[in-house]
Structures are given as C-alpha cells and as structure tokens.
C-alpha cells in the first residue's frame, strides 16, 4: 500500500510533546544497482515537491555536470514551494484568494529572461504590494506599517497574527545547522539512522528560511523583539522569497550535493562502483526540523495554552510556519 507520509504530534496540556512519523521513505533502496544517469531520470518521478532540488543534489553527489538551467529551476521550485505554503495556509478573512495558476507554472516556466520577471511581478502585485527592494529595506516600523495598511493576503494574514498577539508564538531557543564539511557528512551518513534522525555535534539543528535569513535586519529585529516565533518565521519566509528573483540572475553552477531548498538543506551522498550505485543516502530538511527533539518539538513545547481547541490551532500555526514537506496531524491528549 502506498501511503502519503505523515507526521503525528501528540500534545499534552502540560507541555509534553511527542512526535512520531510513518514516513518510512526508502528512496535510496530504489537507487542502489542503477547507473547515475538512471538515478537522475528517476528522481523527478518519485518526488513531488522538491524534485528539481533532488536532481541537482544527485548530480552533485554523482559527479555529473550541473547546468545554469538546473540552478535556475531549483530557485523557481523554491519560489513555488514558499508560495504553495502561503496559498495553502495563509488565509485572511477580508481578502480574496491568491491566484495560483502562475505559481504552479513557475517550474515549467523556468527560463532566464522570463521566470525572474514573472516571479517579481507576482510577488510585487500579490504578496508585497510594493517593489521587492522596498520591502527588503524595511525597518521594524515599516514592517508594522505594511502589515497594518497593505491589502495583500500575507499582510492581512500577519495582521491577524498580531491581533491574536501570536507574534512570539512557539518561540524557543534554536540552533541553526552550520556548514557541514562533506567528509564528516559522508562518514555520518554511513550510519543508516542518520538520514532519518540527523544531528550535528550531538544536537538536532534547524534548517530553512529562518536559519538562512536570521541575520537579515528585518528578521533579526523580529527575533530580538519576539524570539524565534511565528512572526520571525513568516518574515524570514517573505525575505527568502523576495530575494529569489535576484538570485536567479546571479549565475553559479558548480555541482553541489548540498542544495538549499525552500524548507532547508537537502543532502545526497552516493557511492558508485563500476558505473553502478552501491550505496546512497539522502537527508531532507524535514528530518532536521521535525526530529523528535528538533525545533518543531521545542517550539510546540513552548506553547502555554489550556484550551484544547486553541492549543490545537496554535500548534497547527507553528507547524505550518516551520513547514514540513509531508502532511501532519496534531492530537491534543
């Protein structure tokens, strides 16, 4: 039976959090015994969200050339994934739904000279309601003014978070995943449990938009004021998104087995003998962020709410802000 992977979170009113998963993905088992070319052709069929990032990470791990087109399509995929999260869960009462057609076409339309312009136009019209450079230069007062006055879905959604006083919801001390030297990573990946339960120097670490953008002035100010909670996470996603069109124009296609996806760092490691894969490992960002002691669990443990319905609503908001790549279920027990 092919089942969609799922994260299940049991939440107690006393702050106890238990995370388990039935994901059991075993893509590496499918790759052993195939040629590098077969692997690159097969990966887009088995992954739904970050398929292009998996292909580029595989090319890096297998020593195959990565083109400018590959690099561009990963950035387009990152934009689609951020926007997909916004389309699926950033809703506000007083706005109409965001248009989805051009978002869902971003990966297919990933041609330089087109995609960066169509993305910029979508973001400036529907997400920010102003030029990207203007948003990226916001100070704290500008952010508050934008949230209060802009009519876009993200601004209205963030206004609802402020109205509920949820700016710091789920704020917990976090440790961002540092640069991982490839030789150490390759040796850690020899342990089959590492792909499912990764840690770095014994600690579960966070990867993703907040880790990438924590030093951006707008995000850093939100962390200083409210901690690494909802508003900092959402602003980090918006900053990450606003930076993508300019990254599309900056060419650099060196092969990389470590690829930054919308949700965080994706790593492939392969061993090839006589033109055949003999060993393969993948660590996806959700394994870091939704580790049983990782940032999602720490953020949920920080919730203090005695009403079960509200607690469940808060938990869902926190989980969606961290953005797992599979479905989830919260059970307040």
């Amino acid at each position, binding site marked *: *039976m*092919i089942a*969609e*992977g799922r994260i299940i979170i049991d939440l107690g009113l006393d702050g106890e959090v238990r995370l388990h998963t039935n*994901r*059991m*993905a*075993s*893509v590496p*088992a*499918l790759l*052993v015994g195939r040629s590098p070319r077969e692997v690159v052709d*097969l990966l887009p*069929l*088995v*992954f*739904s*969200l*970050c*398929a292009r990032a998996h292909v580029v990470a595989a090319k890096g791990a297998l020593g195959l050339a990565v083109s400018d087109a590959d690099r561009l399509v990963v950035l387009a995929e990152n934009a689609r994934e951020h926007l*997909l999260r916004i*389309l*699926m869960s950033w809703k506000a009462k007083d706005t109409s*739904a965001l248009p*989805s*057609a051009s*978002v*869902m076409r971003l990966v297919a339309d990933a041609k330089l000279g087109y995609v960066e312009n169509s993305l910029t136009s979508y973001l400036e019209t529907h997400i920010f309601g102003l030029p990207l450079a203007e948003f990226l230069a916001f100070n704290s007062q500008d952010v508050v003014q934008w949230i209060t006055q802009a009519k876009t879905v993200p601004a209205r959604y963030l206004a609802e978070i402020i109205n509920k006083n949820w700016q710091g919801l789920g704020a917990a001390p976090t440790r961002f995943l540092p640069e991982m030297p490839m030789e150490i990573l390759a040796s850690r990946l020899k342990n089959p449990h590492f792909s499912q339960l990764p840690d770095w120097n014994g600690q579960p670490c966070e990867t993703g938009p907040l880790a990438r953008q924590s030093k951006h002035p707008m995000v850093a100010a939100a962390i200083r004021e409210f901690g690494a909670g909802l508003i900092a996470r959402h602003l980090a996603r918006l900053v990450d998104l606003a930076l993508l069109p300019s990254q599309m124009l900056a060419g650099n296609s060196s092969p990389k087995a470590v690829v930054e996806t919308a949700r965080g760092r994706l790593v492939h490691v392969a061993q090839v003998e006589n033109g055949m894969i003999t060993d393969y490992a*993948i660590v*996806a960002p*959700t394994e870091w962020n939704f580790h049983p002691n990782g940032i999602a669990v720490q953020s949920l443990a920080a919730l203090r709410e005695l009403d079960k319905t509200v607690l469940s609503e808060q938990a869902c908001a926190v989980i969606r802000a961290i953005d797992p*790549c*599979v*479905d989830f279920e919260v059970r307040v027990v």
Partner: protein
Amino acid sequence: MCLALPARIVGMTSGDNAVVSLEGVKKEISLALVSGVKIGDFVLIHVGYALNTISPEEAEKTLALMAEMEVRKSELRVAAE
C-alpha cells in the same frame, strides 16, 4: 520526504473538490491549485491538494517505482533480520 503520489480523478464534488482513487482507496481532494482537470486525469497529490496533472504513462511509471521501493524495503528488512 515528499514522495509523489499519483491518483486518478474518479468524480467531481462540490466547489473545487474531486474524488480520487489511489490503489482503489477513494479520497476527496482539492482542485484549487490546478485548472482544467477532468475525470480520468491523473494528478499528483500533496496534503489533500492536487498539485499538477501528469500523463497516464508517468503515473504508471511512478506507481511501479513506488511498488518496487516497497519490495526493496521489505527485502532490506528481511536481510537485516
């Protein structure tokens, strides 16, 4: 990891929703993110949304790979015991 989940549209329901069949199991999903989908089309599903349509050939290949993955996984489990 976000595995692709191809499913065939077997019926339309109210609003933006449709019923899909996945290995014979029926499930209601949202078509809010896709357009022009009709009964008989294959779509990739993520958290209850259809993400895009795929050809029947692509769906068949993906389902065969998923089935192979299950077999290999159980072989590995047996080998490990």
